[in-house]
């Protein structure tokens, strides 16, 4: 997947754990873990909105496109 999830960096910058984020956005730790490890196939706007609100960031801070990865695939 050429779409990268930068949740780990955002959490690290805010000294926040995945468990704390899970409690704030009311999304299960398992689902957040799937998202963080890049195993998710899709993300709902509602999930993105909740995470952006909790981390006070923009969707672009969480998502990135890796053209090289796309070429490899």
């Amino acid at each position, binding site marked *: 997947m050429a779409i990268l999830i930068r949740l780990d960096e955002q959490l690290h910058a805010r000294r926040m754990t995945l468990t704390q984020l899970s409690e704030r956005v009311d*999304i299960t730790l398992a689902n957040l873990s*799937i998202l963080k490890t890049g195993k998710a196939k899709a993300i709902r706007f509602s*999930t993105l909105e909740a995470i952006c609100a909790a981390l006070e960031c923009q969707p672009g801070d969480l998502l990135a496109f890796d053209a090289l990865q796309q070429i490899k695939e």
Partner: protein
Amino acid sequence: MNRTSAQALSVARPIIAGLTVLNIFYALSITVLLCASFVTEGWPWKQLGFDLATMHAQAANGLRAIMVIGMTGAAIVHTILRRLRVIVDTVRAGDPFILDNARRLHLIAWSVLGIELLRILVLAIATGMSLPGQMGGLTPAPWLAVLLLFVLSGVFTQGARMRADLDGTV
């Protein structure tokens, strides 16, 4: 799931198990009948009140052919019941929208179609041999059931694809 569906689901498995046993008994009975027709003189025609001498020259073979078709039908019904049992199990497990169930429904549709074609064959033999007794006529209900099953298998295929799309959505 509403209460009626839940109740239907809970009784489905024992009913399918019962029907499977009955179907096996039916197949064995026809097999015994067929074998006996070769070794016992005039059996079962005499017991059924048939006088083969006054009937079509091939009447005995016609009846035997109907028995073979009956055994084939029983084998097809067995596969239908087996697949139906697996589908019911997946519904009870809460995960029915899978491609395997779509494939099973598709095969059940073909099986029901096969049974209907066998029924036509039986009717044709009975009519051709002028066999006595009530064989039943052609009704549209089974053909509608075949159509419904093919449509349902398509619905399941689409449902399974949508379900696969949802897997991994956060």
